[in-house]
C-alpha cells in the first residue's frame, strides 16, 4: 500500500468518525418528533370542525413564513417586500378564475408559483446586487410598485375592492370548496404545505442549502472558496418567491377572493413578525411562529385590537432585545440550561 493511499484511507476514516462529521451526516435525518406537527394538523381537523377556515388560514401563514425563511433565514436576504410574491400568486389565481380562463386549482397554483418565480427572478437579478438599507428599500419599492400596478389596473383587478367570489373548480374534480364548511380548503392547504415543506427540508440540507447558510454567515469566505454567490442568491430568491406565490394562490382559493391587502406592507411585516417570533433559519420556526401569532391575533385582535397592537409591539421589542432566535431559540436555550444543570448535579 502506498503512502498516499494509506493517508487517503486515514482521511476517510477520520471523515466519518470525527464528531463534527457525525453531526453533519446525521442532521438531515428524520427525527420522531418531526411527525408531531402533521399529527397535530390532522387531529385539529377532527377536533375543531368549526375552526377549519381559521385552520386553513393558519396553514397558509405557515407556508408563507416558510418561503420567507428560505430567503431570510437561510440565505440572509433581509426583505420587507415578500408580500409582492404572495400577491403575485394570489392575483394570478384570482384573475384566471375571475375571467373564467382557468379554474382548476392545482394547475392554477403551479401557474401562481411560475408567475411569482418570474417576478422573483427578474427582481432578484437586479436587487440582489445591493445590501443593507438599499436592499430593504428596493424590496419595499418592488412590492409597492406591484400594489400600485394592481390599483391602477382597477378595471381588471377591481382595485381596492378586489375580485370577490372567485369560481374555483373542485379539487380533482370531486372535492368542492365550500365557503361555509372549509374542510376541503383545510385538507388541500395541508397537502400543499406538506409537499412544499418536504421540498424545502430537502433543499436546505442539500449542498445548495448549505452554501446558502455559508453565504449568510460569511459572504467573503464563500466568494473566496469560489462559490457562485450571486447566482445562488438569485436561485434561492426565485424559489422562495415561487413558494410565496403558492401561498398567495392558496389564500385566494381558500377565501375565493383577492384584494390589495395581499400585496401591502402590512402583510409583508406580518410574515416577517411570524417568522421571527418562531425563530428564523430553522424550518420549524415558521410553524411555531404562525401558530403563536395567528391564535393570538384571532382571539385577541377581534376583541381588543388596540391592546393586541400594544402587546405585539412590546413582544417585538423584547424579542429583538433578548430572544433573537424566537420561541424555538428560547426553548433551545432553556433546554440546554436544564441539561447542563442535570449534568452538574
Amino acid at each position: 500500500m502506498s503512502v498516499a493511499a494509506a493517508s487517503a484511507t486515514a482521511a476517510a476514516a477520520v471523515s466519518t468518525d470525527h464528531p463534527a462529521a457525525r453531526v453533519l451526516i446525521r442532521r438531515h435525518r428524520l427525527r420522531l418528533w418531526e411527525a408531531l406537527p402533521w399529527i397535530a394538523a390532522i387531529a385539529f381537523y377532527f377536533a375543531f370542525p368549526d375552526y377549519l377556515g381559521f385552520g386553513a388560514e393558519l396553514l397558509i401563514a405557515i407556508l408563507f413564513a416558510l418561503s420567507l425563511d428560505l430567503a431570510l433565514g437561510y440565505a440572509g436576504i433581509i426583505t420587507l417586500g415578500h408580500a409582492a410574491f404572495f400577491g403575485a400568486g394570489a392575483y394570478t389565481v384570482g384573475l384566471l378564475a375571475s375571467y373564467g380562463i382557468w379554474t382548476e386549482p392545482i394547475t392554477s397554483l403551479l401557474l401562481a408559483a411560475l408567475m411569482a418565480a418570474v417576478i422573483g427572478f427578474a427582481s432578484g437579478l437586479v436587487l440582489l446586487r445591493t445590501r443593507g438599507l438599499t436592499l430593504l428599500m428596493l424590496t419595499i419599492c418592488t412590492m409597492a410598485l406591484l400594489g400600485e400596478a394592481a390599483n391602477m389596473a382597477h378595471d381588471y383587478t377591481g382595485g381596492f375592492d378586489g375580485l370577490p367570489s372567485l369560481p374555483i373548480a373542485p379539487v380533482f374534480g370531486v372535492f368542492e370548496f365550500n365557503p361555509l364548511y372549509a374542510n376541503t380548503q383545510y385538507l388541500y392547504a395541508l397537502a400543499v404545505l406538506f409537499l412544499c415543506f418536504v421540498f424545502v427540508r430537502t433543499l436546505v440540507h442539500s449542498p445548495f442549502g448549505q452554501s446558502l447558510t455559508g453565504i449568510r454567515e460569511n459572504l467573503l469566505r464563500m466568494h473566496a472558496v469560489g462559490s457562485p454567490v450571486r447566482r445562488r442568491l438569485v436561485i434561492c430568491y426565485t424559489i422562495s418567491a415561487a413558494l410565496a406565490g403558492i401561498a398567495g394562490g392558496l389564500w385566494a382559493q381558500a377565501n375565493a377572493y383577492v384584494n390589495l391587502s395581499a400585496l401591502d406592507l402590512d402583510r409583508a411585516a406580518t410574515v416577517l413578525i411570524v417568522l421571527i417570533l418562531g425563530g428564523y433559519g430553522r424550518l420549524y420556526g415558521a410553524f411555531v411562529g404562525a401558530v403563536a401569532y395567528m391564535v393570538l391575533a384571532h382571539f385577541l385582535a377581534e376583541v381588543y385590537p388596540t391592546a393586541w397592537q400594544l402587546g405585539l409591539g412590546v413582544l417585538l421589542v423584547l424579542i429583538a432585545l433578548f430572544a433573537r432566535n424566537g420561541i424555538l431559540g428560547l426553548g433551545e436555550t432553556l433546554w440546554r440550561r436544564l441539561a447542563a444543570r442535570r449534568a452538574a448535579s
Partner: protein
Amino acid sequence: MDFGTSFASIVLGGLSAGTVLFIVSVGLSVTMGLMGFVNLAHGAFAMFGGYVMVLAMNDAHVGFAASLLTGFVVTAALSVVLERLLYRRLYRSGELDQVLFTIGLIFIFMATITIAIGPESQPIMLPPALRGQLNLGFTQYRTYSVFLIVVGLAIVLGIWFVFERTRIGAQIRATVDNRNMAESLGINVDRLFTVTFAFGSGMAAIGGGLGAEFLGLDPQYALKYLVYFLIVVSVGGLGSIVGVYCAALTLGVLDFTLKLYLPKGGTIFIYALTILLLLWRPQGLFGRRET
C-alpha cells in the same frame, strides 16, 4: 386658470409638501448615516411630536410657535430616554433585529396614542397670520405653503452651517466617515450619538407638527408615510443634508403632480423611479460609496 398659474401652484404645493418631508426625514438620514441604524420608528417620533403640538395648541392654548417648540423638546427628551435604554443595545446587532425592534416601537406608539387620545384624526388650527392667500406678484398662493417653504430653506441652511462650519458638525462628519478613528481621536462618540439622535427626533417632531395640516394626524401616521421617509433618505444618500433636501423636494413635487393628474395609482412612477435610481446609485444621489 392659465398654464403659468397652475404650473406655479403645482410647484409651490409640491415644494411645501416636500419641505415637510425634508424636515421629518433629515434626522433619519443623519442618524442612519451616523449609527447605521435602520430606524423605522422615526415616523413615530414625527407623529408623537405632532400630537404634542396639537394637544398643546388645542387643550393648553399655547401659541403656534411655542407649541412647535414644546413638541421638539418633549420628543427629543423622549428619544434620549429611548436611545439610552433601548436603541443603544442594538447598535451592533444585525439589521433584522433593528427592523424588528423599530416595527415593535411603531406598534407601541400607535397603540398608546389610540388608547390615550383616540383613533380619530386630530384637527389643527393655524394662527390667523398663516391662513388665507398671499400675493407673490406672479401668482396668489396659500400663505401657509409659502411659510413652509421659507422655514424649510432656513432649516436646511441652518443644518448645513452646523454640519460644515462648527465643531460638532466636524465631529459628526468624522464619525460618519470612520467611527474607530474618530473615537481614537478622543471624540465622545456615545454622546454624539445621543445628541444627534435627540436632535433628529426633535426635527421629526417639528415636521410632524408643521405637516399635520395637510398630512393629517392620526395613529396610522407612523406607518402611512414610512415608505416616503425611507425613499427620501435612501435616494438622497445617508448623512447628506443637501441630498435629502433635493430628494424630498423632488418627491414632493412629483407626488403632488401625480396625485393631481393620475389620482389612481399614479404613485407607481415614484416607486419605479426610486428603484431605477437606487439600481444606478445604490448609495443614493449624494451618498458616498462604501469602501
